[in-house]
C-alpha cells in the first residue's frame, strides 16, 4: 500500500490555525482544576505569617468545627514524605518557616469556599527569628554556586584586568533588575485521585514526566504507580516546570481523606508559592579601542535564592556567546535569604543579563561615538568566544541589518511634540538552542488515520499544532487524518516545555517516527485492525550531533516617547527581527515573538514585585498592584524573521522561539529612554520617578 500523495504535501512553514483554538475559545478545553471527579474535596493552603522562625502551635479546632470541613493538615499530623532534591516540596514536614507565605497547613473541605473561610479560623503561633530578605551586590553570605541552571558559574578567557587597563575606552557600571512573578493566567492547580496504590494527578504542569517522578519519590511509589495528565495548561513561563507545593498537598490530602482532592493556588498565593524571577544586581566592565572594538568583557551577577533550594538565575551565561572580546570574565554570586525560592522564568538569565550587557553596549556606543547598530556588527564573531566552537548558524548581523532597515534606523530623529520627546534604542537578542531526548510513537489505523503519541505539552504556545504539521509532513497525509495526543504520562516519554526546546525536541522525535512509519507502510499491504505502531527515541541522534555552538539571535529596535513634565514613558513602536532556525508555523511563531516582546515592555517599564523588608514579604501580591502591560500599553509590535537552514541542530531545523522575544527588549527600551531624555536608568523597571525633574 502506498500513502504517497501524487504531489508532495507540505505543512511545515504554513500558516495554520491552532487545532485547539475553537475548543479554547468556547471553554471546552479542560484544564487540571476542571476535570470532574466524584465525591471531590477541596484543599486551601495557609501561608506562614513570619519570614523566618518556628511554628510553636497550631490550633485548628475552630476550623475543624466548621460545617463542611473534613480535615486540617499541618506538620503535627501530616503523613511523612519521601525523598526530594527540592525542599520546597517537603510540605508539612517540619515546624520551620523559611519564608513568609510558605504553606504550613491546609484545610480540606466540601467546597473551596468553606475551606477558605475555615482557614481564617486556624490560629498559628510562632517563635520568630530575625529575617534577612534583601539582596545586595556583595552580601556577606554570598557564595559562588556550583552551577547556574546546569552550566558552570564562571568562565575566564585571557586577562581582563590588563586589557581594561590598556583600553582606550572603558565602561564600568552596575545594573539591577527587579523581582517579578510569572503570573500565568491559569493558577497552579492539581486534582489528585488515588485508587488503592495508584495515583493519578491532573496537573497544571509544563513537564508531566518530571512531575510524575518527583511525586512518585515523595510518596515512595514506583513511577509506574503514578500517572500525570496535563492535557491543557494555561501558561507556565517556567513556573510550572517542576511541581509546586499544591501538587504534593493535593496528593497528600487525597490520601488522608480517601477522596479525590482539588487544590488551586489563589492569585495572591501564587506570589510566595509559585516561583518568580529573582532580583539581580549586575556589574559590567567593557574595554574597547577608539573604534569600539571590544578587548575586554566582564559581567558579574548577584542573585538570591531561598534557604530551601538553590536556584541561581544564570545571568551571565548568555554573555559568553556574544561579542568577540579576546579577554573575558563572567561570574555569579548567590545569596540564600529568607525568601521564596526563585525559579526559571521566561528567558531565565538572558532576560536580566541582556538588560545589563546591552545597556552597557549602548553606553560604549555613546562613549566611542560609534552608531549602536554598527558597534554590535563590528563586534560580531563566527565562533563562540568562550569555547571556540563554530556556530551552526549565527545571523546576528543579518538581524541587526534587517531590523535597521525595517525600522528606518538611519533616518531616526529625536522629536518633541506636545510635551512628548521621542527617542530610539536598539539591543541584540540571543537564546541558546537546546535539545533533549524524547520519544514518540505513531500508530497507523486501517481507516487511513494516524495517532501521534508522546507526553509533550501545549502550554498555550501552539505546540500541538506544530507537531501535527511535522507529523503530516513526514507521513504525507492531510492534517485531518492525523491526531496528536499529548499531555499524559501514559504516552511515551517526552521532555517538558521549557528552555524553548519543546518543538525542537518533540518535533525531532515526531519527525523520526513519521519517517519510520512511512517506510514501514511502504512495505505493508494491509493494516491490522489494532493498527501498526512505531516508536522512536532521539537520544542517539542528539548524542551524535557535531560539536558546534547553537543559538538563535535577534535584534530589537524601540521608539519611546517620554512626557517631559510627568516622566511617563510610552513605547510607540517595537521592531524585532529574529533568526531562529526553521519556522514551523508563522502564526504561532509570531504570537510567541510578540508575546516575548510584550513581556519585555513589561520588564522594562512595569514589572516589580515590591519587597517589604520589614515584613519580609513580596507585598504587591495581586494583579492590581503587580503591574504588567495592559493592552493600551502595547504599541505596534512588528516581529519578523530570517529563515535559517540549520541541519546540524535537528532534522527539522527548529531552534525555538518561546523566549528570545523577551531578551534585549528592556535594554532597547531603556536605551531609547536615554536617547529621548539623556537620563540613563540602570535599574529596572524604568519609572516616571526616575525621569521626573523637579
Amino acid at each position, binding site marked *: 500500500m502506498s500513502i504517497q500523495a501524487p504531489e508532495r504535501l507540505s505543512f511545515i512553514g504554513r500558516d495554520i490555525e491552532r487545532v485547539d483554538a475553537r475548543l479554547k475559545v468556547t471553554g471546552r478545553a479542560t484544564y487540571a482544576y476542571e476535570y470532574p471527579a466524584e465525591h471531590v474535596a477541596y484543599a486551601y493552603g495557609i501561608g506562614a505569617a513570619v519570614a523566618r522562625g518556628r511554628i510553636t502551635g497550631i490550633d485548628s479546632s475552630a476550623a475543624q468545627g466548621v460545617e463542611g470541613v473534613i480535615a486540617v493538615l499541618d506538620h503535627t499530623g501530616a503523613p511523612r514524605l519521601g525523598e526530594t532534591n527540592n525542599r520546597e516540596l517537603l510540605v508539612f514536614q517540619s515546624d520551620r518557616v523559611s519564608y513568609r507565605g510558605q504553606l504550613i497547613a491546609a484545610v480540606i473541605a466540601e467546597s473551596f*469556599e468553606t475551606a477558605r473561610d475555615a482557614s481564617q479560623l486556624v490560629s498559628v503561633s510562632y517563635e520568630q527569628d530575625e529575617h534577612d530578605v534583601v539582596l545586595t551586590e556583595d552580601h556577606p553570605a554570598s557564595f559562588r554556586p556550583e552551577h547556574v541552571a546546569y552550566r558552570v558559574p564562571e568562565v575566564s578567557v585571557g586577562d581582563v584586568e590588563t586589557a581594561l587597563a590598556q583600553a582606550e575606552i572603558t565602561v564600568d557600571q552596575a545594573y539591577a533588575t527587579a523581582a517579578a512573578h510569572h503570573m500565568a493566567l491559569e493558577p497552579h492547580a492539581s486534582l489528585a485521585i488515588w485508587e488503592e496504590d495508584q495515583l493519578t494527578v491532573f496537573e497544571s504542569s509544563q513537564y508531566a514526566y518530571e512531575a510524575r517522578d518527583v511525586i512518585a519519590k515523595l510518596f515512595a511509589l514506583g513511577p509506574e504507580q503514578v500517572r500525570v495528565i496535563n492535557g491543557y495548561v494555561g501558561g507556565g513561563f517556567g513556573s510550572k516546570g517542576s511541581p509546586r507545593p499544591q501538587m504534593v498537598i493535593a496528593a497528600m490530602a487525597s490520601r488522608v481523606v480517601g477522596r479525590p482532592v482539588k487544590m488551586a493556588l489563589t492569585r495572591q498565593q501564587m506570589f510566595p508559592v509559585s516561583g518568580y524571577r529573582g532580583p539581580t544586581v549586575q556589574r559590567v566592565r567593557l574595554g574597547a579601542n577608539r573604534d569600539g572594538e571590544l578587548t575586554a568583557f566582564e559581567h558579574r551577577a548577584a542573585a538570591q535564592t531561598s534557604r530551601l533550594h538553590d536556584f541561581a538565575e544564570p545571568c551571565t551565561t548568555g554573555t559568553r556567546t556574544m561579542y568577540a572580546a579576546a579577554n573575558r570574565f563572567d561570574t555569579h554570586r548567590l545569596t540564600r535569604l529568607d525568601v521564596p525560592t526563585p525559579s526559571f522564568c521566561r528567558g531565565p538569565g538572558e532576560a536580566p543579563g541582556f538588560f545589563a550587557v546591552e545597556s552597557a553596549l549602548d553606553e560604549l556606543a555613546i562613549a566611542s561615538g560609534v552608531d549602536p547598530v554598527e558597534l554590535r556588527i563590528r563586534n560580531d564573531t563566527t565562533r563562540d568566544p568562550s569555547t571556540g566552537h563554530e556556530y551552526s548558524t549565527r545571523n546576528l548581523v543579518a538581524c541587526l541589518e534587517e531590523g535597521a532597515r525595517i525600522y528606518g534606523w538611519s533616518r531616526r530623529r529625536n522629536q518633541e511634540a506636545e510635551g512628548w520627546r521621542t527617542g530610539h534604542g536598539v539591543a541584540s537578542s540571543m537564546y541558546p538552542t537546546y535539545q533533549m531526548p524524547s520519544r514518540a510513537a505513531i500508530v497507523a489505523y486501517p481507516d487511513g488515520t494516524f495517532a501521534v503519541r508522546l507526553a509533550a505539552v501545549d502550554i498555550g504556545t501552539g505546540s500541538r499544532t506544530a507537531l501535527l504539521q511535522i507529523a503530516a509532513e513526514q507521513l504525507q497525509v492531510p492534517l485531518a487524518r492525523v491526531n496528536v495526543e499529548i499531555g499524559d504520562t501514559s504516552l511515551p516519554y517526552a521532555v517538558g516545555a521549557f528552555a524553548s526546546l519543546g518543538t525542537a525536541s518533540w518535533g525531532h522525535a515526531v519527525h523520526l517516527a513519521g519517517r519510520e512509519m512511512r517506510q514501514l507502510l511502504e512495505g505493508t499491504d494491509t493494516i491490522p485492525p489494532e493498527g501498526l505502531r512505531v516508536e522512536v527515541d532521539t537520544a542517539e541522534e542528539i548524542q551524535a550531533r557535531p560539536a558546534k555552538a547553537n543559538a538563535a539571535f535577534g535584534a530589537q529596535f524601540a521608539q519611546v516617547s517620554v512626557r517631559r513634565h510627568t516622566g511617563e514613558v510610552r513605547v510607540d513602536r517595537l521592531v524585532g527581527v529574529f533568526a531562529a532556525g526553521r519556522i514551523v508555523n508563522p502564526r504561532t511563531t509570531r504570537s510567541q515573538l510578540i508575546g516575548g516582546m510584550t513581556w519585555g515592555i513589561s520588564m522594562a517599564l512595569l514589572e516589580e514585585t515590591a519587597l517589604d523588608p520589614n515584613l519580609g514579604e513580596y507585598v*504587591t501580591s495581586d494583579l492590581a498592584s503587580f503591574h504588567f502591560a495592559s493592552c493600551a500599553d502595547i504599541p505596534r509590535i512588528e516581529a519578523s524573521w530570517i529563515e535559517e537552514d540549520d541541519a546540524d541542530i535537528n532534522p527539522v531545523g527548529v531552534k525555538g522561539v518561546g523566549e528570545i522575544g523577551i531578551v534585549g527588549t528592556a535594554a532597547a527600551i531603556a536605551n531609547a529612554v536615554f536617547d529621548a531624555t539623556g537620563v540613563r536608568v540602570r535599574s529596572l523597571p524604568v519609572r516616571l520617578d526616575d525621569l*521626573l525633574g523637579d
Partner: protein
Amino acid sequence: MRPFEYFRPSSLADAAQLGAVSGAKYIAGGTNLVDLMKLGVEQPDRVVDLRDVLEQEIQELEDGSIRIGAGVRNTDLASHPLIRRQYPAMSRAIVAGASGQIRNVATTGGNLLQRTRCVYFQDVSRPCNKRAPGTGCPALESGGLSRGLAIFRTSEECIATHPSDLAVALVAFDAELALWRDGQERRLPLEQLYTSQESAPGRETILEPGEIITAVHLPAPVDGRRSHYVKVRDRASFAFSLVSVAAAVELDGDTVRGVRIALGGVASRPWRARSAEQAIQGAPATSANFSRAIRDELTTAVPTADNRFKLALAHNLVVSTLEELI
C-alpha cells in the same frame, strides 16, 4: 464561604432598617465589596442589596443642577450627553478608572465608597491601622511600600489614599450627596463625606449606620467654564492613579475669574487645593502664577522617601492642566 444573611429589600425604608444593624453592609455593583469579602477584609454578617431601591436616573432639575441616582452605572454616567457636554472632567475621570467590564456594573454610590488599594490593607495577614486598629502601618516604616500612598497627611497612623477617580472630579465641581436615613433625605457636600481620619483611619466617612447615598447633585454649570481631568499612572490603562487632577477654569480676559483644583492619589480623600485656588483666583492666568500657587499648596505635604516624586508630579500636572484650560 463565611456565612452571611442576604436581603434584597424593595423600599428605601426597608433597606435603611435592614442596614442599620451592626455587621450589615450594603451592596450595589459589588465590584469592591465582593473582592474584599473574598479576602476576608470585609466580613459582613448581613448583606443588603440596594439594586431594587436605588435611583437609576440622571435628571436635569429646574435650577439647572443635575441629580444623579446613586444606582447609575459608571458607564452610563460617563457617556451621558449632559455630563459629557457640561462636566467633561467627570466623564474623563470615570473612563480613566477600572475597566469597561467593571464600569458596566459599578455604581455612582459604590464608587465613592470604595476602599483603599493599599497592599497592607488588602491582606489580612499584614498589619494595618485602618483594618485592624493598633497593629501598625508598614507603609510608614522605613523601607515599607508607600510609593502609591498619600503625601498630604490626614492621620499619623495611616497614609492610604482614596482610590476613586470620580470622587476627585465631583469634589472639584462642589458636588453634594443626597443621603437617606430615618425616612429623611439630607444634603452633604461630598468633600465633607470623608472624615479627617485623625483619630480613626478605619472610619473613612461620616455616614451613620444604615445611611444610604441616594443621589449626587451637581451644581448648575457655570458659563465659560472649561474643565479637564488628567490621571498619571504607571501604565496606560487599568491602574489606580499615582496623581490625578481635576481642574476647572473660568477666565475674564487674561484674568482667572474662577478656578477649581482637586487632586487624587495624594490623600485619604480627594484633595481640594483651596489655598492654590485662592492664590490663582483673580490673578493673571500665567504659568508662573499657577506654579507658585500649587508649590505653596504642596509645602504642607509630608511625603515619604518612596513617594517624594509626587510633589514634582502634582506640581507639573496642575500647571500643565491649567495651561491647557486657558
